[in-house]
């Protein structure tokens, strides 16, 4: 499997699409997560502060952009949306093999099909880890720049919290990547897999439960077993930034981090098993 893993990395490194995706995520992390917010909080006129909690101004929100809050800020921006990038990584890793017909080239080499799949999974996991570490890295760097610009002290969260955050981010992004790989395996292509993955992640699950909620039906007991809800629980478990004189801006998650980790791990295992079953049994006719 090591040969397959190295082979997959060899492909990833040479694939421009992968670099574009990773770089785009990191650039967006700086621009959307920090630069634009800092600009808004810095230059907005006082009249724009209507609707904020009494006594607060936009400038108070800047605290979220400082190093002590970079973990919370990263989760608040990317806890849900960032997964989309990981989904695309997973889809491209597997779906392109069908699109180019290289799946038959791979399956006629020495390794068996499952070895190929698990080698690819391991390589995707490494790419996802690089994305997550990169994301926290650029966010930390951005927060230092902003704190320096604002003349604030530079104090990071404890190392164990940062490590826990990287682990949680890896699980959230990993879930999305495996979800993408599974969709690509099932549909034997990239376009359908990305479309369905995005539709589910951004619309379907949210929409279903919002509709129930609209009807006054309590849905959290059911929702706690769905993946996107659990990526939210895990992100929210790192807490929200407290503004001066206010409580946290987000509600306490319905389920705790342990619950979210277990559920997401179960989904990762289930999707991997589905991919393995399709990989092992299905004919390659492309």
């Amino acid at each position, binding site marked *: 499997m090591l040969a397959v893993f190295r082979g997959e990395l060899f*492909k990833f490194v040479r694939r421009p699409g992968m670099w574009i995706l990773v770089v785009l995520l990191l650039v967006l992390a700086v621009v959307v997560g920090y630069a634009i917010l800092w600009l808004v909080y810095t230059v907005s006129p006082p009249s724009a502060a209507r609707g904020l909690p009494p006594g607060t101004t936009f400038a108070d929100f800047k605290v979220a952009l400082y190093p002590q809050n970079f973990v919370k800020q990263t989760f608040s921006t990317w806890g849900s949306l960032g997964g989309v990038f990981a989904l695309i990584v997973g889809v491209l890793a597997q779906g392109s093999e069908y699109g180019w017909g290289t799946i038959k080239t791979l399956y006629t080499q020495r390794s068996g*099909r499952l070895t190929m799949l698990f080698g690819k999974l391991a390589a995707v996991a490494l790419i996802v880890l690089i994305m997550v570490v990169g994301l926290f890295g650029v966010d930390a760097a951005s927060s230092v720049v902003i704190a320096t610009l604002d003349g604030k002290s530079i104090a990071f969260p404890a190392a164990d919290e940062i490590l826990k955050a990287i682990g949680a981010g890896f699980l959230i992004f990993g879930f999305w990547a495996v979800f993408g790989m599974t969709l690509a395996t099932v549909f034997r292509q990239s376009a359908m897999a990305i479309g369905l993955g995005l539709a589910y992640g951004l619309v379907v699950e949210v929409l279903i439960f919002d509709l129930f909620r609209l009807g006054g039906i309590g849905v959290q007991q059911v929702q706690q077993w769905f993946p996107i809800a659990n990526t939210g629980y895990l992100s929210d478990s790192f807490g929200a930034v407290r503004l001066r004189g206010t409580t946290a801006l987000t509600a306490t998650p319905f389920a705790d981090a342990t619950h979210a980790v277990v559920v997401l791990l179960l989904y990762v295992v289930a999707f991997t098993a589905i991919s393995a079953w399709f990989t092992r049994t299905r004919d390659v006719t492309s």
Partner: protein
Amino acid sequence: MAIISKVIAQGMRRPPPAGLGGDKVVETNGLTKVYGKGIIAVDRLDLSVYRGEVYGFLGPNGAGKTTTLRMLLGLINPTAGSARVMGATPGSPASLVKVGAIVETPAFYPYMTGYDNLRLLARYCGVPLSRVEATLEQVELTPRAHHKFSTYSLGMKQRLGIAAALLKEPDLLILDEPTNGLDPQGMADVRNLIIELGKGARTVLISSHLLGEVELMCTRVGVIRHGKIVAEGTIEELKGAATLTVRGTPADLAMTVLATDAGAENVKELGDGAFSLKVDLARAAEINQHLVQAGVAVSELHADERSLEEIFMELTGTEGGL
């Protein structure tokens, strides 16, 4: 037709061809593939390919050639029957380690160079990187090795496919229509390469619908139609014995000389002074000399040999679909 029927009858579970021993590299028993709602692509196929032969798998489009080759590579699961390739289950690492293959159009990563594509496969196969340059040289792709695969012509893609198949120095080469998309010079080059590769202990199983190609390359041929082997044998066996046609006057004198030379049972009178002889074609000059010495005026003497195309059409019921 009688000869063909004989070949068909002999083709089923026949003993190994002379000189090949009994070492089966590919063996199928009742191999069957049914798609969807009863579309039978391969129908109880019994096939044996022996070590060291260049076996041509011949059939019109849609006859089941590619499906069979895909089953032998483990890409497609059979609906029924079994197969062994290099003594192992098709598609298993034990089988694939000794098999190089091209199935239909060679598929590689378009964003990588030909060289990098082969390097990647070398990693997967555990083959030393020195093999990459050697195989590129073998298929004469070295000058374009560092260009992206997406910029390759169809012919160059085919060559890269052959290079990839050779990377493992396989004991068995499975090539599905390897000259597809090549220009005449490219086809000739690939043909010569395959003939060269087929020398020695290496076995080549090649599918094609190009009869001339098969005739030039293969030591034995299996003809497939509607998923079934309808004939199997050497090219000579499939063609049957050639005959010699002689025309001379006087006809009765010619008949006497020919009967003496070839045996009366091997001479058939065609009328108008023409005769058909079942003899070794190498004796044509000798027979001509005897006729002339006996006073027969010989106006025509030529070999009559059925082309593989005629045989193929007769076996597969196809016309112009080659």
